[in-house]
């Protein structure tokens, strides 16, 4: 394990277009730098050895949170996890996202790390990804041809793999405005407070008169990417909310996931606790709706 990084050329484009140009020119020989928490760590381990590092930090307009809960929220690529945590609108109206960020223990990681950067790392245990998946977020991606919007459930392809091509960058996360009578929650299980999640869940529930109008259930660390438990959702959609049905949905979620055994936990445990966490997260969201 080295102490020192391998040399590279550092580039700080002044516009997003310039950044895209660099990335197109250098293709796989370049990597994007936002907060650097993951990039610098992987460079030190020699997992990656880019010849060029393209920093986004001088590109204007990427470090803002814009909009509100009625129009929807736009969170720029350079917005840090700490800024997300401190955003009153997110704390009040996108509670599951706030909870996912708040339980990230290291203040330093939250100060340096960006939310978009976290998504691009695409770890299947990303708490932020789980919450955003349950919130129906979209990503605005810039590429040499222009830009496009991609729903987050189409963004992740595998472990540390997204649909991003080398010459593309995510510039924004778009959070939709949530319909009235919607509430959410996030929960996870960890070894110590600073550890990566063993299992994480997020739920966004829309219900009126105790009939579930819409529900999104996202689960993390139990498949190669964060996933939606679609069958679990199907169990509840358009149905009257009641305890037995929630338990059935949780059981369906547990059947849908494909966890592995690793240093943090076992496949068996993750499957079992997926059921428990999904149930509890739905219950929590429901409780918040009724409050």
């Amino acid at each position, binding site marked *: *394990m*080295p102490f020192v990084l391998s040399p590279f050329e550092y580039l700080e484009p002044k516009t997003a277009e310039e950044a895209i140009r660099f990335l197109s020119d250098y293709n796989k020989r370049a990597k994007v730098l936002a907060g650097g928490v993951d990039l610098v760590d992987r460079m030190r381990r020699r997992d990656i050895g880019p010849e060029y590092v393209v920093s986004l930090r001088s590109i204007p307009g990427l470090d803002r949170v814009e909009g509100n809960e009625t129009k929807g929220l736009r969170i720029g690529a350079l917005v840090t996890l700490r800024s997300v945590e401190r955003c009153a609108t997110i704390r009040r109206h996108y509670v599951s996202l706030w909870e996912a960020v708040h339980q990230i*223990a290291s203040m330093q990681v939250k100060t340096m790390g960006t939310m978009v950067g976290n998504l691009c790392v695409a770890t299947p245990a990303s708490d932020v990804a789980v919450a955003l998946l349950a919130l129906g977020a979209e990503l605005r991606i810039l590429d040499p041809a222009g830009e496009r919007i991609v729903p987050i459930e189409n963004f992740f392809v595998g472990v540390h793999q997204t649909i991003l091509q080398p010459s593309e960058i995510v510039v924004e996360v778009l959070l939709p405005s949530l319909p009235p009578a919607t509430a959410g929650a996030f929960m996870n*299980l960890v*070894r110590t407070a600073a550890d990566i999640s063993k299992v994480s869940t997020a739920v966004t529930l829309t219900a009126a008169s105790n009939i579930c109008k819409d529900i999104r259930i996202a689960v993390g660390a139990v498949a190669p990417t964060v996933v939606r438990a679609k069958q679990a959702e199907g169990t509840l959609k358009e149905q009257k909310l009641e305890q037995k049905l929630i338990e059935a949905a949780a059981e369906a979620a547990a059947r849908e996931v494909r966890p592995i055994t690793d240093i943090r936990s076992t496949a068996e*445990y993750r499957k079992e*606790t997926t059921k428990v*966490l999904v149930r509890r997260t739905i219950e929590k969201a429901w409780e918040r709706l009724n409050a």
Partner: protein
Amino acid sequence: MIQEFSVVGKRLPRIGAAERATGAAQYVADMKLPGMLIGRVLLSPHPHAKILKVDKSKAEKLPGVEAVIAMEDVPRKAYTRYPYDMMAPAGVTVMEVKEHHEFYEDERIFNDKVRFVGEPVAAVAAINESIAEMALELIEVEYEILPAVFDPEEAMKAEAPIIHDSVSHNIRAHLPVTFSAGDVNKGFQEADHIVEESFRTYKQKHCQLEPSVCVAHFDLSGRLTIWSPSQTPHVLKKKIAYIFGLPEGMVRWLTPIYIGGAFGGRQSLTNEPICVALAAKAAGKPVKLIYTREEDFVTTESRQPICYTFKLGVKSDGTITAIQVKTFTDAGAYYSHSGATTGMSLQQCLWVYRCDNVAGEANIVYTNTPVSGGMRGYGNPQAMFALEQIIDMAAEKIGMDPLEFRLRNARGTGEPTAVYPPTPIENSALHECIELAAQRIGWSEKRTSRKDGSKRQGVGMASVQHWTGAAPTLVEHSSAFIKLNGGGSANLCVSSCDLGQNILGTLAQIAAEELGLQADDINIVTGDTDVTMFDSGTYGSRSLYGAGNAVLGAARQAKKQLLERASEELNAAPEELEVRNRRVYVRTTPERSMPIADVVTNATFNSVGQCLDITGVYTWSTLNQSANFNATFAEVEVDTETGEVKVIKVVIAHDIGRAINPAIVEGQLEGGAVQGIGYTLTENFVVDMDTGICLSNNFETYRIPTSLDSPEIEVILVERPVPSGPFGAKGVGEAGGVGMAAAIANAIYNAVGVRIKELPITPEKILKALKAK
């Protein structure tokens, strides 16, 4: 009678606190010497392989590289990293000492075959880190890969690969029944109930925040200076001289006063031999050998995994009639401390509770994994995890409160200690500790399991006997030297090492109290084996007691000289004089007094030619133990749906004898407790069973508790001074964590009725056990 002290018993801030708080403190990694080179080490990627060839040529040619070393460049002397083979066990002759340390020697600086993934194979020294790292990549090693074995039970089988020549079944040592007494078969026959169970523990890593590091330098006369954050400078200095064939006087070991934690991991040789070998080749330039955290994880030692099979016989009235223990220890690739910790562990299992019929045996087994060594508690945390659960099980069998069972059966004052050969327990305040801690945690109210939805709460306890130093198993001694200065200060010269526990500041408090000075008046001179006298080392909870007694002896000597001189000036016999507040007083007529400073000046510049430097020197050695005791209680909450355990509160009452500095004692117990919680619940040193690669070699994969994982902790200091201790003090450095795993395991059982017999106690195991119920 309550004694009033002016310095002892005060919660003084640790010395050197401001330096640590401002970044002024210089640790070894912060050192810069003229011409200093950076050393880096090449580690084996294979768990078991012969080294056929090491081609250093490309590395040597790289500009900026000044030394490349492998097997052929280093002494071939066999040794052990374990320090105490250089010290005699009690009652052993010089001849036997020689055999004693040859028994341990199973390693060399670069072995001709590697025995674990991460074993050093070669090293470089270069003008900077980048070049050193590039040079490592240019070294080409040819290995002949051998079959490897990672599990100790597998390693003991006939068909297992042999790791050390002529060590059959990889059983390096079999500790026989010397720890036994009476007749266990008879004892089991007398029992009304028998409890039997097996327990497993894993390797725990020290995770001290300062990674392994060393600086070494040969000067032009060939004299070697080593800078290392070690716990045992005098003993390791002798070892280095032995390995490198140097006269001991040619080796100078410097220990910084700032060490970033040790927890027993710096008792042994760590990377010093490699650093010295690099310095030997670096033509007079100092070499700083630096390790990454990942390298520190595998190249330095970890706590022995010890597995126990326990059988205990008990009568319905609570009498223990027989205890039988069989254990095996995973020593890893080299023997190091595994014999010693296993021995201590067995002794604890068999002797802390009153029982006439005890039998124990142990196998110490090599595996192709990183070396097991000394870590805080030294076999006792492992032993207590097993023993204190067996005790709870026995109490349950006969329907007795486990607290009562312990009060009834734990050995106390006057009875034999659990350290071999046993000496009488000088004083045990264990009963008081148990009663106080039980009351503070709410034992009687909380023993009936409480519910809150899917959560269950419970309390559990462990009672602990721990050693203050390893006497008489080892003959230990400490020396101290004091000189008084003009102006009324004193220089105290000791060899104890400040690992974070402020031993130097606390020793200064002892000296100041005895000399009638303030703590700030004491200057500490330390950290240089050319200046300090011998000290066995800073380990085994021994320094406050051992070095403290040396300091007290030296201070008394200096005081004697001081009072003899003062008696001339104050016109009173020395026996009529006393010191306090920086003055010498005539006891019965205190208006007759003079400043200590003046006594010293007048002695130094004596007008009639009777000049004297007022000094004291003392060597303190013991063949006795003064065991310390504690009661560790834990309150937990278990989530029955997820198996998660939350430690709500910990209470530890410790029999400290006298708390020379109560804040320091509390800090040791609190820190030890949280290490114990990590050991029990979240830490796990994992070796891949196919490749032998350590999968938990950094803080991301190996999880120690954060601030958010630290529960409410209450420590109670029970002060029943012991005559043999300085101002009555006993040890505490290790005891905070010793009972924690058992207390938590017992609390979990109280909460949810499942007993987890394998550490770490993870939610995965608890959930599985709950489902099986």
